[in-house]
């Protein structure tokens, strides 16, 4: 169960952090790893899998914000354990540094080594709890300003111009004090739902799934106990029914297929009143992960039409309609569609008065791309694209193009209707009233409409 080395490489392959715990893997493992990942070509895949073996050494890696977090070992270990560990190390470091990037690593390498020494000893994991580590770690982080949005973190979307959100939270170190020396007492609970929907060419839903996480980040002093109440009509498990049974479910309850919980969560009264109680450890962690295949209303309806218009021409019309209330605004929407590979040119026509929209035809990958800054609930937008082909097409043009895929983020909206009814903090005194932030967000994981 032990690892031999841990290292972090930049996208270019530079060593950012390197720690050898057991001295049993030959020198040059970082180069070996990087060469292998960069030029992976095996079993028809162009992408290196997270685990591979070179000369008896097993390399594990996860990619976080473009950095490679790597562990090596010669032992036949549990793969999940090592990958989970790498992910957790990244999270602990982020908890401390506030921002995770090459720059923050380099500025704080002494602190990072200090952390690594306490997390792993002689290849064995000691602890990955930010809470426990706090009593062993003495270096203070040198805080680096977040250069730009961090794509890694779903909660990062809250940093964008949302008035109600304190944007600093996600990039705040758990140990650093705010300017002024006092820490603000606050706690964040984020309900993040990633949805996957596949529509058939006739617009029916073929598959849909919600993968949700209730994520928590606490800056409360004195570790008070917290009670988190969820919908009272919440049900877990779908009985004997097949999970893809779409007959309208009786009652309006929220039915999760399955869920799992963080170690610290106690479920004593979960059965009676759907309340989770926990003493949140420091740092960011998932309180609960859940999975749901219950029918839900997809936030966007996509309608695509592709028509021949002469021997070397065709027209594509994509319509998207936002199926959520008008006080909700989706942002950073991208619509993509692969075009026939003999497409040589595409000219676009947006609706009149369209603002904040961008279109592009990616010549090399024959990809149509349509970006929208935001879409207000209830609105409908249309894109027309005139395609020119370099050769005559034969057969069915719809087989050569598509499917249409979408990515988007919808703050303050969740499709599952799972809710945090209240967030109760055990009171220390009558005047103790920390900030509580409960935030919802829905993101597209795989949102595909076939044509």
């Amino acid at each position: 169960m032990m690892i031999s080395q841990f290292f972090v490489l930049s996208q270019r392959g530079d060593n950012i952090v390197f720690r050898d715990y057991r001295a049993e893997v030959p020198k040059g493992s970082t180069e070996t790893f990087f060469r292998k990942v960069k030029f992976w070509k095996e079993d028809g895949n162009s992408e290196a899998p997270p685990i591979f073996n070179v000369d008896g050494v097993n390399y594990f890696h996860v990619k976080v914000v473009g950095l490679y977090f790597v562990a090596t070992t010669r032992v036949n270990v549990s793969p999940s354990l090592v990958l989970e560990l790498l992910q957790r190390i990244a999270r602990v470091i982020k908890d401390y540094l506030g921002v995770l990037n090459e720059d923050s690593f380099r500025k704080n390498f002494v602190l990072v080594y200090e952390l690594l020494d306490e997390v792993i000893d002689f290849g064995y994991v000691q602890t990955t709890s930010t809470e426990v580590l706090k009593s062993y770690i003495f270096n203070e982080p040198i805080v680096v300003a977040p250069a730009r949005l961090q794509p890694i973190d779903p909660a990062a979307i809250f940093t964008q111009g949302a008035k109600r959100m304190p944007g600093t939270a996600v990039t705040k170190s758990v140990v650093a004090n705010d300017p002024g020396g006092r820490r603000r007492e606050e706690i964040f609970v984020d309900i993040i739902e990633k949805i996957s929907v596949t529509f058939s060419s006739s617009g029916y839903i073929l598959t849909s799934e919600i993968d949700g996480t209730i994520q928590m980040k606490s800056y409360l002093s004195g570790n008070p106990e917290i009670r988190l109440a969820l919908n009272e009509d919440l049900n877990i498990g779908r009985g004997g029914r097949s999970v893809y049974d779409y007959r309208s479910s009786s009652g309006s309850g929220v039915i999760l297929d399955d869920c799992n919980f963080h170690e610290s969560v106690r479920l004593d009264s979960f059965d009676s009143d759907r309340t989770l109680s926990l003493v949140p450890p420091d740092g960011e962690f998932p309180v609960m992960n859940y999975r749901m295949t219950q029918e839900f209303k997809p936030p966007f309806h996509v309608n695509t039409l592709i028509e021949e218009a002469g021997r070397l021409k065709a027209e594509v019309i994509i319509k998207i309609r936002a199926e959520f209330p008008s006080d909700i605004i989706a942002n950073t929407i991208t619509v993509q569609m692969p075009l026939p590979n003999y497409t040589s040119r595409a000219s676009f026509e947006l609706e009149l008065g369209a603002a904040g929209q961008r279109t592009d035809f990616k010549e090399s990958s024959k990809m149509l791309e349509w970006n929208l800054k935001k879409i207000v609930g209830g609105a409908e937008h249309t894109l027309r694209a005139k395609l020119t082909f370099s050769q005559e097409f034969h057969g069915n043009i719809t087989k050569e193009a598509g499917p249409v895929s979408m990515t988007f983020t919808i703050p303050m909206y969740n499709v599952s209707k799972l809710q945090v009814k209240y967030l109760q903090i055990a009171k220390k005194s009558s005047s103790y009233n920390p900030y509580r932030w409960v935030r919802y967000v829905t993101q597209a994981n795989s949102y595909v409409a076939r044509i």
Partner: protein
Amino acid sequence: MAPPAASQRYPSPSQPSGKSEVSDLKTQLRQLAGSRAPGVDDSKRDLYKKVISYMTIGIDVSSVFGEMVMCSATSDIVLKKMCYLYVGNYAKGNPDLSLLTINFLQRDCKDEDPMIRGLALRSLCSLRVPNLVEYLVGPLGSGLKDNNSYVRTIAVTGVLKLYHISDSTCIDADFPATLKSLMLHDSDAQVVANCLSALQEIWSLEASHSEEACREKESLLSKPVIYYFLNRIKEFSEWAQCLILELAVKYVPSDSNDIFDIMNLLEDRLQHANGAVVLATVKVFLQLTLSMTDIHQQVYERIKSPLLTLVSSGSPEQSYAILSHLHLLVVRAPFIFAADYKHFYCQYNEPSYVKKLKLEMLTAVANESNTYEIVTELCEYAANVDIAIARESIRAVGKIALQQYDVNAIVDRLLQFLEMEKDYVTAETLVLVKDLLRKYPQWSHDCISVVGGISSKNIQEPKAKAALIWMLGEYAQDMSDAPYVLENLIENWEEEHSAEVRLHLLTAAMKCFFKRAPETQKALGTALAAGIADFHQDVHDRALFYYRVLQYDVHVAERVVSPPKQAVSVFADTQSSEIKDRIFDEFNSLSVIYQKPSYMFTDKEHRGPFEFSDELGNIPITPEASSDIVPAQQYEANDKDLLLSIDEKDDNKGLSNNNGSAYTAPSLESSSNITSQMQELAISGPAISAVTPQTSFGFDDLLGLGLSTAPAPTPSPPLLKLNPRAALDPGAFQQKWRQLPLSLTQECSVNPQGIAALTVPQSLIRHMQSHSIHCIASGGQSPNFKFFFFAQKESEPSNYLAECIINTSSAKAQIKVKADEQSTSQAFATIFETALSKFGMP
């Protein structure tokens, strides 16, 4: 401490050249060394950071060693830490410095601050200087006794480090014994966990030459130790929980109640958010229930949902690790996952290594009820922009076609692929159509009419070309222009780079010639001439062979080259079932990811805890075995005390009611009653004599063993009933085995199911245990396994000992029996054989 990044490949332009900066630092450090001025620690910190950052980028700063040590006479822990990092880096390469370092660290090991004691001890043990190990023993000894748990956790790992530097020093200091006692008594969970890791490593390495270590290693698997860990599993960190679960996998439970107790205790671990904990628990469940078919299947049902949740909740890398395990289960028991096929649909943004696994899973779960939908979905992927995945999808459709009885719809889809006119789609499809025709010749008309329409010019890939040529030869009579297409291809012999294609051309020309001689004669001549002149040995040989056999007799040639074909019923599986079972036994390890058993990618010493040791067979049988070992059987009587009952543990209270229906549905509890009854029946079955009181009359009548018949005249083998809770310690076993004469030797065959189930000794051990025959030692690896079993009479302490050697390749078992009571040894042998013959049976 080991050095951090020793060098950096792209030094920044502002990097100092070295010398002058280092001597500057030296002077500055010296000035600060004696100072007690306020704020001096801050200035020291800045200087230390500089030193360390130089060190990290590869500048030699060893010359400031003395000053660094002098400056670190401080209580500032940040300074200390940086100093340790520094000395750890330079001590190894420099003997003079190491001695200095050791003095300095030894002093800090006695510091009043536990943090400093711990850190100094860790640095001391990490120096890896072999000739200085004597200095470690003292500080380690006191570290293990330290009243601070942080220091103790470090000291425990320190012992392991010492063992790797000098095993004799570690053993001589009797550290393993100290660790064992700490493991069983320390109040701090991390100390206990570190003891367990350290002891597992030390004893595994020692076991090759020390019997005592071997016994100690085995004793970790004894019931009291296992239950000690399992009962307090929640006190441990999630990582240590994995360690404990891995240990529990190797535990051989005494009976089915034992199994259900463990499963109920661990049930809520399946809801853990950490995938490693869940997989380790799943492994325990799967291994425990191996010999109980019904429950084993229930386990599959139970673990499905948690695994699917993990697949969709983590990063793509974590999903991949879980999905690989799910893949293994799906391929093993496709019918259990048949209704969940939609979970294995690919999402467009998934990495290709994930998609590939999913495609294989879709292929595996396809059955009569879902094939249509799966194939429809796969056809969508065939038009995918990711060509590698499009190819895999087409192959998947083909595989499904080959494993289904009703292929009508699929053949149509395959033929539609050919109409898509994408080169790679056509290529893949041709290969599949060829295989399909080999299995279902009746489809030839439909296929050939479509294949005939494909221009061979559009096909470049050798495999596809070879497939097309094969069909041209095989169905020459149905494809009007076959001879001419072949002729064209033969004319371009020189441009054909693939030897495989040229070989196929020769054969196809021959076949075509037998069917349509006048049209093919010329082409065949050209082909043979070109083939004989070919530089490729195989092509040359085949051409020459065809030529000679044609010369000898055309009819003989036809019988050789184009005999009537039999349809292929099953295509050979790429992996033997033995290898698959081996991988399954190594669940939750890299074997599952690589889809290879560990011996194929790891050398012996690194196979980790998954390999069952093969030397253990000999151990307790040797004369030196001492009496202080703790055999598992002795504790059987106290079973119930060892395991806290579920009700006492409030954490477990919610087991059946806290999470709604998903968690109550497959209740292991209720089934346990049924199976334990079944178990009883199985035990009393072969013993024939008495019927256990629990058994219902209906069942007895079914068996024709009504209570009334029990006292009736006995059948020829004398009545013998074995005690399911027999106990015998290895020492006594050994003594008896030496003293008793051999009563009888028998050889019998083992049924194929038994052989298939016997991938590791444990599977048979559990099975025999359910027949009240207990294992005392086992070992070996496929194909040879050796076991020592014992059993006792129900009513009196009369023992039966047996040695059983099973060769899985010959499917034979050799049994040697020794008995206290010679007269009943034949009866025992019969029970033994009966039990063995049921092994592997559902």
